[in-house]
């Protein structure tokens, strides 16, 4: 207690106060006077009396110094003095300070902002109880490693497994919702009754689904997301017990989920309803629509669970022909939620880290140049008795002040950069990454910033201190700070700039490869012309859902109304749009041997105008016509991939196919269309079967509209016109085809990484050029006299240019050479993001090498010019 009190008083003593100093002087003086008076009384002569008094005190100044040491904390006091001195020094060199703080701030900004994303995604745990024990369950088939489960399989897995405490299922979906103004499409999910208990999430309002509430006969109930509660019910508690009409059926609202709850695997549902297993898909083992969620039993590893599920899947495979070729797989929920952005985050983190490194190297060389210029000061201070520790502490303090300023700048700008990056993420991607909501500076990020700062401060203090004390301080005093001191520095500084250039090469190559992948991806053969295409999705009224004739009639009406709008060239319907992926079917070719194998192909129901609206390429045969309806025998169109895989060496047109079921009617192939990118841009096209919409309709489809111009502006008009036909129709997901392509995960991931890594690389290029400029300029300033002598001895300006640029050339060549080797190794990190380009792409490597070489040589030209224009007379006279 009293120690603490003493410490606090001493800390307070750090603030300089003239009064305290005066009091000390007074007290010592009065002490001396009393002592002298006593001495005089005892018979000493005046000067002897004074001398004795001072001697007994151990000297006036030492006594005061001992007192002062006790008054404050000497270490801290020195530190504050150092800090004040450091700030003064830094203010005296505004150029150096600005450059160092800005460069450091840039590096910090990039790395902190990227770390924020890493933190939100990979470090912060998901908002569930013990999230590490939660897993997702999938069925696997040859082309689809994470496929949905069928309801009977889900029930069997739940019953037979020995590794989970709970197994539940969910299905992300859309609901049509009756509102006052018509029918709206809302995002939703259906879950089994135990779903939220398995997650360990309790509602903030109302109750969870009760066991058995998901049985087909149970009354329908719904829970709301927090956002939907706020948006649709203004956050009022009175919503409990109210009904909401979803997909034409009334549901009682029973609860509201917590604000921070999210579950990206089901999308971003507003309404959660119990899964009543009532539609036609659920009883079939071949109809896969559910995702499994399970909690691992204590002591059971992911591998054990996976093995158990594979075993069960194997049993089911033997038992049911519909399960042929189907395995099972257990994936951690964390992997499921954040796995898709882990590669890009890794790349960005590496990029930001490299940028930070290059920034640190840059500042280190600035600090070194300054330390070099201060060798003499250090030598003098050392000669005057400054201990090595005190001199080093001066370097440390300066580095800390510098880094603190840089870190402050970096943190503030990181906040802006984070906001910018969040803005870059479209609403679609945000829905898939709900953990990014509310991204802001937090303790972990501050800790990260502090850790980086400590590292940087250590680097900036150790390097100059080490340099200043080797080989010998006295040398600095002797040589007068000119001449040969430069040679050792040149060797060291040169290494730094080579490192800097090498890092810049790595970043530039990374950006180049990503950019090229992005370009290749956007120019992949789509099999259609995506420009000027407006698209939207439509759900026909719930009342006509099961009446095919009415569904077709309404679809025809929608098409003809849309086609009559001004600016519309043609209109087509498809059950799903290109690049969305989607449903599959098992087929067989009549006349080919068939033993029940699962020939899985993509499957789309399309209208007569669909292919012409997309401007797809017809290879053979014909497109559908309006006459291909329920009264005619079924016809299909296949794409090139399907033709090549299932009709090798044959002409498919006129041949017959069927679905794999025994009672499936034969369908005649009437045309072959060139492959359309129906799935992800970066995957090879899966064989696809197109059936005539009029023969196999769906009340839930997409409309594709070719416009003469301004497809974006036309979308609301189209949607309005369609809803006027029948208020029960809901339209949603209005988007141009180009937007759809740009927003696909494949394009989006590469766009983001290209922009960010590109940004980092540009900064690295700038810093690299600045770095080599600094090295060469410093070298020229050191060699002024040498160059003066050479010129006095008859060297031409050209020779001087060559001398300087040769030095620069070696450094640049070394940097680029090392960089190229490193980047080939580093590019393998990128392989998941690369598309249509090899990691060691010679074109990119050559471009980067040339670009960097030119920028660096340009940067060196300035000091070289200065060297060539040295006046030998002045250079020799100086000093």
């Amino acid at each position, binding site marked *: 207690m009293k120690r603490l*009190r003493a410490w606090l008083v001493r800390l307070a003593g750090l603030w300089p106060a003239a009064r305290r100093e005066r009091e000390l002087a007074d007290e010592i003086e*009065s*002490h001396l006077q*009393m002592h002298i008076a006593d001495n005089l009384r005892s018979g000493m002569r005046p000067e002897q009396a004074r001398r004795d008094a001072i001697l*007994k005190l151990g*000297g006036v100044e030492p*006594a005061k110094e*001992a*007192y002062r040491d006790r*008054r404050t904390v000497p270490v801290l006091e020195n530190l504050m003095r150092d800090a004040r001195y450091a700030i003064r020094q830094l203010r005296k060199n505004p150029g150096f300070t600005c450059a160092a703080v800005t460069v450091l701030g840039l590096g910090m900004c990039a790395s902190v902002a990227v770390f924020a994303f890493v933190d939100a995604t990979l470090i912060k745990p998901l908002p569930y109880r013990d999230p590490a024990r939660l897993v997702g369950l999938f069925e696997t088939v040859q082309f689809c490693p994470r496929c949905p489960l069928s309801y009977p399989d889900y029930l069997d897995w739940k019953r037979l497994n020995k590794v989970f405490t709970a197994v539940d299922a969910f299905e992300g979906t859309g609901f049509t919702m009756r509102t006052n103004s018509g029918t709206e499409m809302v995002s939703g999910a259906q879950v089994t009754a135990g779903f939220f208990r398995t997650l360990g999430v309790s509602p903030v309002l109302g109750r969870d689904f009760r066991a058995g509430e998901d049985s087909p006969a149970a009354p329908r109930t719904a829970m709301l997301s927090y956002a939907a509660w706020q948006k649709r019910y203004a956050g009022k508690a009175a919503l409990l017990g109210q009904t909401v009409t979803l997909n034409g059926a009334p549901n009682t609202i029973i609860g509201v989920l917590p604000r921070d709850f999210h579950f990206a695997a089901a999308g971003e549902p507003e309404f959660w309803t119990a899964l009543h297993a009532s539609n036609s898909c659920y009883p079939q083992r071949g109809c896969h629509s559910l995702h499994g969620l399970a909690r691992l039993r204590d002591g059971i590893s992911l591998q054990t669970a996976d093995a158990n599920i594979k075993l069960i899947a194997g049993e089911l495979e033997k038992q049911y022909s519909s399960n042929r070729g189907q395995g099972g797989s257990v994936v951690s929920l964390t992997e499921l939620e954040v796995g898709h952005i882990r590669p890009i985050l890794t790349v960005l983190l590496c990029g930001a880290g490299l940028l930070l490194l290059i920034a640190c190297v840059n500042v280190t060389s600035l600090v070194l140049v300054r330390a070099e210029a201060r060798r003499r000061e250090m030598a003098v201070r050392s000669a005057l008795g400054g201990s090595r520790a005190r001199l080093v502490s001066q370097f440390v303090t300066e580095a800390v002040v510098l880094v603190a300023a840089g870190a402050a700048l970096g943190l503030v700008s990181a906040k802006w950069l984070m906001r910018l990056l969040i803005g870059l993420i479209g609403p679609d991607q945000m829905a898939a990454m709900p953990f990014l909501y509310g991204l802001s500076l937090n303790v972990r990020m501050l800790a990260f910033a502090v850790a980086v700062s400590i590292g940087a401060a250590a680097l900036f203090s150790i390097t100059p201190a080490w340099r200043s004390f080797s080989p010998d301080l006295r040398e600095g005093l002797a040589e007068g700070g000119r001449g040969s001191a430069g040679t050792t520095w040149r060797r060291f500084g040169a290494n730094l700039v080579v490192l800097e250039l090498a890092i810049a090469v790595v970043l530039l190559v990374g950006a180049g490869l990503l950019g090229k992948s992005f370009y290749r991806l956007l120019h992949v053969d789509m099999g259609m012309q995506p420009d000027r295409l407006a698209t939207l999705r439509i759900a026909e009224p719930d009342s006509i859902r099961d009446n095919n004739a009415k569904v077709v009639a309404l679809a025809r009406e929608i098409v003809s109304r849309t086609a009559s709008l001004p600016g519309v060239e043609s209109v087509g319907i498809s059950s799903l749009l290109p690049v969305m992926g989607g449903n599959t079917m098992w087929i067989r070719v009549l006349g080919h041997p068939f033993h029940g194998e699962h020939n899985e192909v993509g499957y789309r129901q399309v209208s007569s105008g669909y292919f012409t609206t997309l401007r797809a390429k017809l290879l053979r045969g014909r497109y559908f016509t309006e006459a291909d309806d329920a009264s005619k025998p079924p016809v299909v169109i296949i794409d090139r991939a399907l033709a090549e895989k299932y009709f090798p060496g044959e002409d498919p047109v006129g041949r017959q196919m069927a679905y794999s079921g025994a009672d499936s009617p034969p369908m005649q192939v009437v045309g072959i269309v060139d492959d359309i990118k129906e799935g992800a841009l970066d995957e090879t096209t899966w064989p696809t079967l197109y059936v005539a919409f009029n023969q196999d309709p769906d009340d839930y489809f997409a409309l594709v509209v070719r416009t003469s111009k301004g497809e974006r502006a036309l979308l609301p008009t189209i949607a309005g016109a369609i809803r006027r036909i029948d208020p029960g129709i809901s339209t949603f997901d209005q988007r141009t085809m180009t937007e759809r392509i740009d927003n696909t995960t494949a394009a989006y991931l590469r766009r983001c990484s290209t922009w960010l890594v590109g940004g980092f690389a540009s900064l690295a290029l700038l810093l690299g050029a600045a770095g080599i400029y600094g090295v060469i300029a410093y070298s020229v300033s050191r060699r002024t006299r040498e160059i003066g002598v050479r010129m006095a001895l008859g060297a031409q300006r050209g020779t001087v240019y060559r001398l300087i640029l040769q030095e620069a050339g070696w450094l640049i060549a070394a940097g680029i050479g090392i960089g190229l080797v490193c980047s080939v190794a580093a590019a393998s990190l990128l392989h998941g993001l690369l598309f249509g380009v090899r990691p060691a792409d010679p074109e990119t490597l050559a471009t980067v090498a040339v670009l960097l070489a030119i920028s660096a040589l340009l940067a060196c030209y300035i000091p070289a010019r200065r060297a060539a224009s040295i006046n030998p007379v002045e250079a020799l006279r100086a000093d």
Partner: protein
Amino acid sequence: MNDKTDVWQGTLALMVLKTIETMGPLHGYGIARRIEQTSGNLLSLNYGTLYPALLKLEQEGAIASAWGVSENNRKAKFYRLTRGGRRQLAKEARDWRQATAILARFLSPSGGVA
């Protein structure tokens, strides 16, 4: 001079406290002289070390100081004992007495073996 003992580490504070207790409020010089006198001039006290010791006691709250006028009309800083200081003095004196008693037993001719 040479046969005088230096002040042992840690005992100066106790001497200062005891002196102030005995003498009442006193200035630094007075304390120093009093300590030397009390020791029968056997102790050699470096007066320069007294002031940091006083400051330390003041920081710990054992003593308080105020400017006043000395016996021969000189301005001087007077130190007085606080209540905390009295407690500290009592405790440290007890500790010392115990310590010296123990040491005395060891050093007594009977060798401290009871």
